[in-house]
């Protein structure tokens, strides 16, 4: 097990970095969706007034 981890250090780093990066991407997407919803709500509100 330890041998395997030692030999593939780079790939472990790679998986971790990719995981973090995908986490950031998913987080940003949810934020963007929220912003789009808010923008639409605001547009509606303005239309009603």
């Amino acid at each position, binding site marked *: 097990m330890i041998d395997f981890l030692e030999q593939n250090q780079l790939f472990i*780093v790679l998986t971790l*970095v990719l995981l973090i990066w995908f986490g950031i991407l998913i987080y940003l997407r949810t934020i963007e969706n929220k912003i789009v919803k*808010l923008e639409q709500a605001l547009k509606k509100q303005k239309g009603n007034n």
Partner: protein
Amino acid sequence: MKIIKYLSSLIITLVIISGIAPPIVEFPMHWYQYPIIPGLEDKFRNIFFHVPTAWVSTIAFLVSTYYSFKYLTSKNDLYDIKAESSASIGLLFSLLATVTGALWAKFNWGSFWNWDPRQVSIVFLLIIYFAYFLLRSSIKNEISKNNISAVYNIIAGISSIFFTFILPRMLTGLHPGAKGGKDLGPILGGSISGNIMVTFFVSLLGFTLFYLWLLNLRTRTGILMKELKYD
């Protein structure tokens, strides 16, 4: 905007894979092998992440200064929001550049902090833009807040050119390209192997696009906050 979003996600994913996965060998025979750089070995891979973060922070601060200038000449609130957004992204990326740089410094120069001129100048930048946000929060009158923070941002942006581009090259330091070094450093001097160069510039492109996406998101939240009078 959609293209920028997907392109930046894709490019940075590719850069992460092609920056970390390829092995380093003494005599690279194929395009997927990186050369061994004496003294750096595997640590050189950080160049694909550390330099682009520093690059994005510089770009973000310059863009912020530009929008402050636009605000003063046009008095359009949108530019003020953009200037603030860009400055906040710049602050985030300069923090990232400090952290990635400190990690690199630990393994290459021996300690996290070496008082290299470039490390000092990024501290200047952090203080300057931290002060910018503090200044924004300490002026109550909306119009004079926008005006004064724009003036400060321009002064700060112009003086930051001096200590990000000029001062580190005048003083002796550990970064490549400092005074007393043989050349301008690996990137500007062009002494870098082909595949590293390609990955590096693709990484720069990816991070710049990512910055544009973040700027777009942050500006839209700024506009929403303004419209809803949420402060």
